[in-house]
């Protein structure tokens, strides 16, 4: 079978390009990375009339072929190299018609390169009268299609044009109109000499090589020669870029003037909205109100579907454990696979809700205002205005939060946000805090009305926030980047969101989580099940025997016997052995081997701590919290007198849970988002170190 025709969507950021991509490919999308770089590659397929399939790639938003970011450099790398696997057979150039002057620049550069292209003039609904497309098509001399990705119009014509392309015999006649770039004498010489050594025919391609030889993916001998040519002939890189852009603007000025008319009313409306939205006082207030709403949605509303998923799984696994014969494979299925599956699906409501809200914020144009307002503050911590949304979301769950960092363009800022997000206390830490906080402070009121436990809670949350900001600050100093940091952010016009696009984005996020992170979560969950169900040799069987005898001698009823067996089996398992094995390491923190076991098993998810402690203290799984607290209160240290859970131990354990990376799902998502195991390992290590040192300090001071 011959290779699918490769069509690329190209355009400035905010041109509606990605929405168009979603509408064209629907759910036939694949998200991967471009080879060799950590830039996200979105591609999908479209089947046109007659059944031919074409591949559509959404190239990163680009302002011009003079790049300022990693993503833009990648686009230049692809478009200047006909042998690049992603070099397009056709470019669909998407431009926002209301910003036509700026969006024409890149289109003209593409034409200078002589790549086949047709032009989509988007957002036609935002201008009051039908604009003069003729001026545009006269200028570009390639097909121009008007569309509105907000109102879903023009899509048919675009698909029709793609169909036309697949059948077209003379592609250059319809889609190529090579514009020439005016060159100075020096530039002409440079271009000529570069053509001579590289064999490049297109003068503009040779000029781009002169501009970008330093980083462009060309063979080494050419690279050196090009650089020596440019220095020898005194080629002024920046001057030449500026001059070219100015020439371009001059050249198409008559065209854009013919189009740009009557926009006064939208202009004043937007200014009024912006005056409120970015107001000194109202702006931040409005932002935090919106964030409160986002937080509330993923913290509280998501629990309804989450409880349903959990309840459903409990029903299913109970049914299976009654139906299936008693065999370790049945246990593997119920406690390993089903539990792991439930551990994956449980995150879907939070991910879906957060992404519906975030795409609404992005699409409406509000997000760029927020980024602008908080740029100064977040910059100090090496992050981006968008990071605030992720950090707030982490208060509910780090998983959707980390996934939401995709829109942060600067790779370093994005990485820092991913690394520190899990330090913000999430909802899974709550059950652990709840059970331990009573050991830190007595149930008293401070100043007559403030609950002491509540204050400790607040302190723990605060500690998480400080930990996140502090480590972000450190990472911003350590991590190196070749990208320059700048804001220069375009504030797009306010738009009504395209609901179909919101739906597609959300669905894509959920599916990719299940597909990519789901695998890892399932595997780790099975490993943890093996660790806590099996032991070396006859350990488990012996433990059961011993527990049964003990139960008989103590005259226990059936339920109590079961609990006692579970306790002894867990102690005899690999997890139990590991808990004992790490005891010397955690003793300085005030922990014993029982807590060691809980630390290991709660790697699955922090709230598992409570369940494991219940098993260790031989309590059934029903109304465990109160009984567990009583049992823990009675627990004594080795001397048999001093209580195990005093203020020092409990606080030390709490601090450990504030900082430690006790969540395999978060690590799986970090792996998915960064594309390598390096970062989840670093994340696990630095958070573990913070936890250990934090607990050590707290325990040494208090004990």
């Amino acid at each position, binding site marked *: 079978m011959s290779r699918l025709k490769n069509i690329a969507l190209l355009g400035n950021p905010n041109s509606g390009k990605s929405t168009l991509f979603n509408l064209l490919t629907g759910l036939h999308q694949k998200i991967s990375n471009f080879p060799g770089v950590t830039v996200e590659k979105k591609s999908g397929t479209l089947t046109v009339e007659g059944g031919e399939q074409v591949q559509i790639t959404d190239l990163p938003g680009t302002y011009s072929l003079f790049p300022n970011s990693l993503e833009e450099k990648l686009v230049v790398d692809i478009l200047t190299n006909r042998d690049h696997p992603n070099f397009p057979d056709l470019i669909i150039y998407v431009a926002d018609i209301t910003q036509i002057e700026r969006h024409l620049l*890149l289109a003209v550069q593409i034409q200078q390169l002589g790549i086949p292209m047709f032009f989509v003039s988007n957002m036609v609904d935002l201008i009051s009268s039908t604009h003069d497309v003729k001026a545009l098509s006269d200028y570009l001399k390639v097909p121009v299609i008007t569309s509105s990705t907000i109102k879903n119009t023009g899509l048919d014509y675009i698909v029709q044009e793609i169909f036309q392309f697949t059948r077209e015999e003379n592609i250059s006649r319809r889609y190529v109109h090579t514009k020439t770039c005016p060159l100075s004498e020096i530039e002409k010489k440079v271009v000529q000499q570069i053509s001579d050594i590289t064999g490049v025919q297109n003068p503009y391609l040779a000029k781009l090589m002169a501009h970008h030889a330093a980083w462009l993916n060309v063979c080494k001998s050419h690279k050196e020669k090009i650089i020596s040519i440019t220095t020898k002939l005194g080629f002024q890189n920046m001057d030449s870029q500026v001059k070219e852009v100015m020439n371009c603007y001059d050249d198409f000025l008559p065209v854009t003037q013919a189009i740009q008319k009557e*926009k006064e009313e939208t202009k004043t409306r937007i200014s009024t909205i912006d005056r409120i939205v970015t107001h000194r006082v109202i702006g931040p207030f409005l932002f935090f109100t919106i964030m409160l709403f986002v937080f509330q949605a993923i913290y509280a509303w998501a629990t309804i579907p989450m409880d349903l998923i959990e309840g459903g799984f409990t029903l299913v696994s109970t049914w299976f454990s009654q139906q299936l014969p008693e065999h370790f494979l049945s246990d593997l299925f119920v406690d390993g696979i089903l539990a792991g599956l439930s551990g994956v699906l449980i995150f879907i409501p939070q991910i879906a809700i957060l992404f519906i809200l975030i795409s609404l914020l992005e699409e409406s144009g509000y997000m760029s205002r927020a980024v602008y307002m908080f740029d100064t503050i977040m910059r100090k911590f090496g992050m981006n205005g968008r990071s605030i949304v992720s950090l707030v979301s982490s208060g509910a769950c780090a998983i959707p939060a980390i996934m939401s960092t995709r829109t942060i363009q600067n790779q370093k800022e994005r990485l820092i946000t991913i690394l520190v997000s899990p330090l913000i206390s999430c909802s899974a830490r709550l059950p652990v805090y709840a059970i331990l906080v009573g050991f830190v402070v007595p149930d008293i009121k401070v100043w007559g009305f403030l609950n002491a436990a509540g204050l400790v809670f607040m302190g723990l949350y605060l500690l998480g926030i400080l930990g996140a900001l502090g480590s972000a600050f450190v990472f911003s100093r350590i991590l190196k980047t070749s990208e320059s940091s700048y804001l220069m952010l*375009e504030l797009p016009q306010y738009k009504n969101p395209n609901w179909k696009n919101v739906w597609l984005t959300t669905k894509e996020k959920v599916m990719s989580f299940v597909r990519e992170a789901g695998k890892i979560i399932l595997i780790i969950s099975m490993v943890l099940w093996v660790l806590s169900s099996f032991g070396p040799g006859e350990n488990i069987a012996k433990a059961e025997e011993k527990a049964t005898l003990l139960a008989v001698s103590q005259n226990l009823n059936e339920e109590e016997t079961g609990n006692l067996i579970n306790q002894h089996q867990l102690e005899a398992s690999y997890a139990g052995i590991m808990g004992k094995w790490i005891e010397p390491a955690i003793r300085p923190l005030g922990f014993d081997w029982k807590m060691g076991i809980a630390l290991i098993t709660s790697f699955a998810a922090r709230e598992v701590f409570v369940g494991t402690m219940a098993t260790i203290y031989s309590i059934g799984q029903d109304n465990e919290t109160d009984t567990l607290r009583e049992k823990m209160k009675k627990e004594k240290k080795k001397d048999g007198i001093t209580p195990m859970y005093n203020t020092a131990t409990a606080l030390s354990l709490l601090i450990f849970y504030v900082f430690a990376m006790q969540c395999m799902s978060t690590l799986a998502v970090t792996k998915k988002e960064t594309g390598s195991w390096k970062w989840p390992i670093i994340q696990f290590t630095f958070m573990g170190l913070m936890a250990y040192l934090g607990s050590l300090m707290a325990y040494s001071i208090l004990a």
Partner: protein
Amino acid sequence: MSAKEAKVKDTHTALNLKLGEKAVICEIQKNHLSSRFMSLGILPGKVCTIVNEAPFGGAKILQFENHKIALRLEELAAIYVQKIIK
């Protein structure tokens, strides 16, 4: 950079524009970001205004025609302007 040039830079960049003051862009400082300025449409000859200052400082919104661009202070300092006196 000579003392004279430094003085020109100080007094005549977009950084010195007050809220609502109109100015014409004369020149963009040449550095690695100048092409980004240009592709955002910030070009010599354009009439621009500062329409907003960020709540926590550090950045302002520059408006020209119907475009709004958020710029950091050091980015504003790279835009040489001439004030329009009414």
